[in-house]
Every structure is written in C-alpha cells, then in structure tokens.
C-alpha cells in the first residue's frame, strides 16, 4: 500500500475496518462491494442453472418423467427471473463497481453507502423469491413475463414475487444512479467523455436505461398487485381495462431490459479485443454513437414481443421497422470489432477466446432476432423454441460469455494472481461446445413447431431435445470448473504484474495487482 501515508483522519484505512462478516455487511468500498455482487451472481448462476437442468432433464425424452407440469412451469419462471435479476444483472453491476472507479481514476463510487445498500437488498429479495417454492401453490408458474390473467392464478406466491421484484428494482435503481453520478462527477482530470473506456460508456448508457425502465416495471407489477388484492381492473376487460395493456407496460420495460443485459457486454468485449489484437479499437466514436442509438431505439420497439396479440396493422408495421433498424447500429459494432482484429497481432488467451465466441455467437442471436422481427414470420415463430434459441444465443454466449471474458480478463488485477491458462481454455471449449449443442438444435425445434414452456412434446421432436439436454449438462457441469479456477486464482498462482497483459490500455493497468484497497486517492492526470 503506497497511499497509506496520505490518509487523513476522516478517511482512515482498514485498520478500523471490522473483520470477518462485519466487514462485508458494512463495507463502503467499491472493490468489496464489487466482489460481493460477483459472488452473489455466481451463486445465483448456479441456483438458476440447476433449475435449467431440471427443465432439460424433463425434456430429455417425451412424456412426463421426473417432475409434474406445475413444477416444470415454476422452474421455467424461476429460472428466468433468477438468471436475469440475480445472475446477469448483478454480475454486470459487480464489474461496474470494481472497474469503473479504476478506469476513470476515481477514489471510489460517488455514493459509497448507497452502494452497500444496493447490494445488500439483493440477498433479501432473492430469499423472498426463492421462498415461494415452498408455499402452498408453489412458486410463480406463469412465466417470467407475469402476464395476466394467467399469473393471477398464482397461489400464495404472487405478492412475494411482486414485492421481491420491487426490492430488485430499488436495488437496480440505486445502483444505476451511483454509476451515472460516478461517471459524470468522479472522472480524473483530463478524462473527457470521449476518452472514457467503452466499458464505462456502455455502463453509463445502461444506467440511463435502468433508471428509465425499472420504475415502469414497478408500476406494472403494482397494478398486478392491486388487481389481485384491491379490486382494480387495469387488466380486466369487464372493468374497461385490458390484459394486453400489461404486455405493453411490461415490454416497455422488457425490451430495454434485454439491452441492459447486453450493452455492458459490448463494453467488456470492446476492452478485450483491442488488448489481444494489440491494436486500438476501430471506430471508437462510432462505437459510442452506436451504443447510444441502440439505447434510444430500444424504447420504441417493445411491441415486437406482442405481434400475435392482435394489434392494429399500423402498430405492427411501425414496430417491425423500428426493430429492424436496431440491426444497423448492432452491425456497426460487429463490424468494428472485426475491423479491430484485422491484421492485428492476435493471441488467444481465455478472455479473448470468450470474446471471440461472443462475437460469432451473439451475431447468430442477432440474426435470429432479425428473423423474429418480421411480423408474418413471427406469427410462425412466436412462443416456439425458435424464440428460446434466439434469446439464449444473445444471453448465454452473449451476456454470460462476456461476463466470463471480463472475469478472466480482470481476475489477475483483482487477485494479483494469474489464473490457470490451461484450465481456462478447457473451460472455454467445454462451454462453447455445450452452449451450441444446447441451443442450436432449438432453432430447428422451433421451426418445426415445438412450443416453448412445455414439459412434454410430440415424439418427432425427441432427437433434437436429447441433443439439447446433453449439451445443457455439458455446459452446466463445466461451470464447476469456472468456480474451481476462480477460487484457485484467489488462493494463489503466478504473480500478476501491474499490466497483466501486453500493453493494455486503461488506468486500471497503472495500479498494482492486486489493486490496493484504496486506489486513486489522488486523482491521476490523464493526458
């Protein structure tokens, strides 16, 4: 620790930081909180993952083998809620906590106490959510989209789910406010907006999206709650409401939400590819503008999730073309990543492998998205396994791979040790094979007509389902390696230098590895 000498009385070091659990409960340090978020996300990744494996186990063969249909539906619903709100989002917030202050040269997040609050709400929220599995009527089973009137048949679980979602929303909003304020107010002198690393940029825009849409989700679920318990009729035609109205409000949140889960991934990949291609990012400004346009467009495409509910034709056309438009800035990004590698001196360490897999496989998900955006085609694809294949391609080899890439990329900075490269590569190859074996056949299942969210299926779908289930178990089990590698790296390994990689750009590589508890107490000067 080189900066201890500069501490003043009102900003003392960890000598009076409580030890053990107390330290983690009361911490206001962005690195501690980042670690908490990441570990929590990892735990939820396994909880949600186990549910996915139950789903795939049941779908290995046609007929009902292991679970009854009610429980199956609870698994699909809970799996999605946990993966979205418990795994992917908190993992990104964890990375934001760790990296944003390091990348912009700030001493910490702008509002450190609120940062702690944002995190510690989450374990309680997920306790509420998971407890519903043990209630009369079981957990929620109407799908993560919570459509009425179906969701209103939920048993005792309904208010727990809704209030848990409120807690997650409060946590996300506070987290997002912290990110924006940190970026807008805490940058080191000379760190102008257009010098910020892309991870910071994408998170800034993600945070705007979060603050704009999490309250809308809160509104939607509040209306569900009052419809259920206080006699309002927002979603009942008899009283002049409309169940479709829920879908509009939900997807006004829901579509930006999917970008909330992909923009930070874009940021991570934009950090990693230049490092391992040993070239600066191609078209930095274009990347920033593309991110901003994607965020803007994400507010005017929501009804592409509802093409089949009976919308006026003008609405369908508008939402179709607006959705297709998103492919343009997305294409700009894919092009720029590729151009960054053009004639680069590339090496393929684990972070780069994950980033490359992201590039290829996310693009497949983007293309299937484009297919889904075509209204007449969507009539066929909607609510089929094709949709399941689409969003898993963008979310698993998309968001989740980017998170893993980021973890491998920055783990040496966090722990001071290099991870085991051989194990990392094995983990990568198992994951990438597992993911494709799981999700690629689902495209065919969907095109052939297999509906989503169903515990049984016609026998002609058997082969592809078996492949998919085998892939899922390969993918799921190989994630145990990920945990092993992480904890092995925490406990030891080759010493990492400050730079870790070969001349990477970014302020985070100017501090020692492991990054000291307090960094940038004195703001660095950015040229």
């Amino acid at each position: 620790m080189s900066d201890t000498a500069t501490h003043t009385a009102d900003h003392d070091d960890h000598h009076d930081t409580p030890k053990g659990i107390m330290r983690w409960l009361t911490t206001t340090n962005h690195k501690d909180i980042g670690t908490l978020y990441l570990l929590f996300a990892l735990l939820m990744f396994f909880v949600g993952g186990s549910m996915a494996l139950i789903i795939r186990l049941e779908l290995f063969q046609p007929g009902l083998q292991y679970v009854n249909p009610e429980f199956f539906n609870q698994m699909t619903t809970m799996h999605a809620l946990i993966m979205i709100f418990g795994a992917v989002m908190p993992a990104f917030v964890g990375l934001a906590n760790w990296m944003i202050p390091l990348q912009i040269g700030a001493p910490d997040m702008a509002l450190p106490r609120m940062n702690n609050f944002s995190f510690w709400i989450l374990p309680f929220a997920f306790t509420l959510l998971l407890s519903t599995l043990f209630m009369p009527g079981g957990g929620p089973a109407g799908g993560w989209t919570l459509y009425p009137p179906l969701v209103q048949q939920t048993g005792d679980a309904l208010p727990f789910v809704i209030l848990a979602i409120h807690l997650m929303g409060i946590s996300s909003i506070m987290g997002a406010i912290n990110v924006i304020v940190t970026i807008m107010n805490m940058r080191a002198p000379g760190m102008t907006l257009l010098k910020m690393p892309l991870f910071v940029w994408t998170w800034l825009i993600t945070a705007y999206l979060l603050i704009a849409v999490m309250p809308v989700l809160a509104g939607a679920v509040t209306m569900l709650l009052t419809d259920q318990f206080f006699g309002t009729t927002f979603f009942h035609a008899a009283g002049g409401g409309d169940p479709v109205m829920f879908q509009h409000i939900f997807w006004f949140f829901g579509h930006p939400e999917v970008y909330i889960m992909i923009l930070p991934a874009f940021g991570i990949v934009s950090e990693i590819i230049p490092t391992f291609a040993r070239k600066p990012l191609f078209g930095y400004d274009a990347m920033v503008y593309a991110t901003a346009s994607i965020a803007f467009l994400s507010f005017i495409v929501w009804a592409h999730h509802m093409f089949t509910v009976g919308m006026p034709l003008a609405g369908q056309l508008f939402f179709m073309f607006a959705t297709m438009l998103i492919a343009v800035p997305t294409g700009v990004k894919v092009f720029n990543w590729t151009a960054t590698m053009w004639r680069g001196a590339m090496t393929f360490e684990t972070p780069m492998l994950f980033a490359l897999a992201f590039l290829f496989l996310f693009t497949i998900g983007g293309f299937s998205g484009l297919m889904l955006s075509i209204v007449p085609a969507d009539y066929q694809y909607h609510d089929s396994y094709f949709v399941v294949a689409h969003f898993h391609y963008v979310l698993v080899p998309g968001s989740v791979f980017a998170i893993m890439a980021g973890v491998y990329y920055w783990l040496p900075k966090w722990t001071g040790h290099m991870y085991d490269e051989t194990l990392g590569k094995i983990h990568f190859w198992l994951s990438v094979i597992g993911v494709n074996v799981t999700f690629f056949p689902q495209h065919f299942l969907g095109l052939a007509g297999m509906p989503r969210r169903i515990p049984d299926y016609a026998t002609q779908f058997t082969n592809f389902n078996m492949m998919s289930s085998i892939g899922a178990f390969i993918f799921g089990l190989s994630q145990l390696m990920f945990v092993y590698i992480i904890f092995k790296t925490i406990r030891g390994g080759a010493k990492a230098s400050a730079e870790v990689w070969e001349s990477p750009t970014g302020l985070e590589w100017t501090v020692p590895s492991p990054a000291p508890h307090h960094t940038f107490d004195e703001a660095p000067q950015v040229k």
Partner: protein
Amino acid sequence: MAHATGKYYVPHGSWWPIIGSVGLFALMLGSANALNGSGGTWPALLGLAIVLFMFYGWFAEVVRESVAGYYSAQVDRSFRQGMIWFIFSEVMFFAAFFGALFYARALSVPWLGGEGVGFFTNLLLWEGFEPTWPTDGPAGVGGDFTAIGPWGLPAINTAILLTSGVTLTIAHHALRDNHRGILIGFLAATWLLGLIFVGLQAYEYVELYQDYNLRLDTGIYGSTFFMLTGFHGFHVTLGAIMLIVVWLRCLRGHFTPKQHFAFEATAWYWHFVDVVWLGLYVFVYWF
C-alpha cells in the same frame, strides 16, 4: 472533471444500509403475508418502523458530516446529481400509470365499444356497451358512480399547490440572501399548504367513497383515478415531511446561503410533485 480541492469524502463502514435492508425485508415479507391473510399487519409495521429508523439515522449521520464540513463541492455535486436521477426514476414510475390511463382511454375502452379491431369483441361479448369516459367498463364493475369534475375542491387544491411552489421559491431566495426570518416563515407556509392539500385530498376521498360511489374498484376509472391521485398524495406527504425536516434544520441554523443541498433537493422534489399534480389535474379531473 475538475477536481475540487481536498479529497473526496469516502465514508467507511456504515450500519445503516444493512439495517435498511433488514427493514425492507421485514416490510415486504410482512406485507406479502398480510395480503395472503396470514400473520396480521404488525410484521410489516415493524419493518416500516425499521426503515424509518434507518432513514432517520442515516440522514442524521449525513447531516452531522455535512455540518462538520466534510463535504467538498464535488461531494455536493454527487448528491445533486443523485437526487436529480432519483426524481427522474419517480417520473418514470408515474409515467407507467399515466400510460395506463392513456391506453385505457384512447385504446382499450374504445375497442371494447367496437371501434377498429374491437368490432367483434364488442359484437360477441359486450354488445351495446357505449365507450364513454369516465367508465367502469362494459360490466359496470363497482356499480353506478359519479365522477368528480375539475372545479371545486380539485381547483382549490391546484391553487394550494401552486401557491406552495411560490412560497417555497420565496423561502429559497430568502435563504440565498440570508434572511432567516423570511426563510423560516415561508418554509412553514409551504409545508402547511402541503398538509392542507393532503387533508383536502383525504376529505375528497371520503366524499367520493360515501356520496359518489367512486371507489378504487370502480372499474378502470376508479383504478386509474385512485392509483394516480393516491400515489401522488403519498408523494406530497413525503415531500411535506422532507420540508418539515428542512424547516427544523433551518430553525437550528443549518444551511448557508451558498451550501444548502438538502433544501434544494427538497425544493426540486416539491416542484416535481407539483408538476405531476398539474398532469393529474388536466388528464384525470379535467378532460
């Protein structure tokens, strides 16, 4: 961004957030059980009490730190920006309910009445339903009711809130010119007006329930009316409490003409509830 002189104040180890999380957990758990008809309301109330205790303790700590001079201009900016984004999130929360109102009025009710794509819905399910507004839907959920017009109490309430915005601005100018007497007087007037507003709103609710048969479960009109005005009234109450706290701090001599973040944040919040009210007045009461 230019770095202010002195270090950015990073507080260390705080118990308040975890107390708040436990409180919120108890509040949510208690409420969910109460809604399911088990466990009574006291666990939720206990949770609420813990949350209130957290707010009190947390803010008291921040006030102490502020008075002790720990906060640089940069910290002050963080607070300001944080408050602005918090208010934006509140705007979006209200937007969801306004969205529901507009959707019902412009789309779902006309469709139920047979307009456009709703032709067969109307013919087969709700023949004879006239899509007017206000409405409690084709099934007349909640029975016949009378809506409340924009004149009378709502107009008075509008005047009260607008006046409170003026008194607040006068108080703010007084604070900047260091006229403590005017500051305290007009700030007191502001929160008094706020409380009168809430009182009149409560009176209106009683009247609506008793004499107009307009209730929360009066179809889509009752739903949107009470959820919008109810959440708004709740926010006015919060704003008034914030004003009272700021007022008490003024009495104790807090704030300087240059540095008074809590005052300004509260003022922004108050203007925000004011603007929401104007939206309500126009779209809920008037048209």
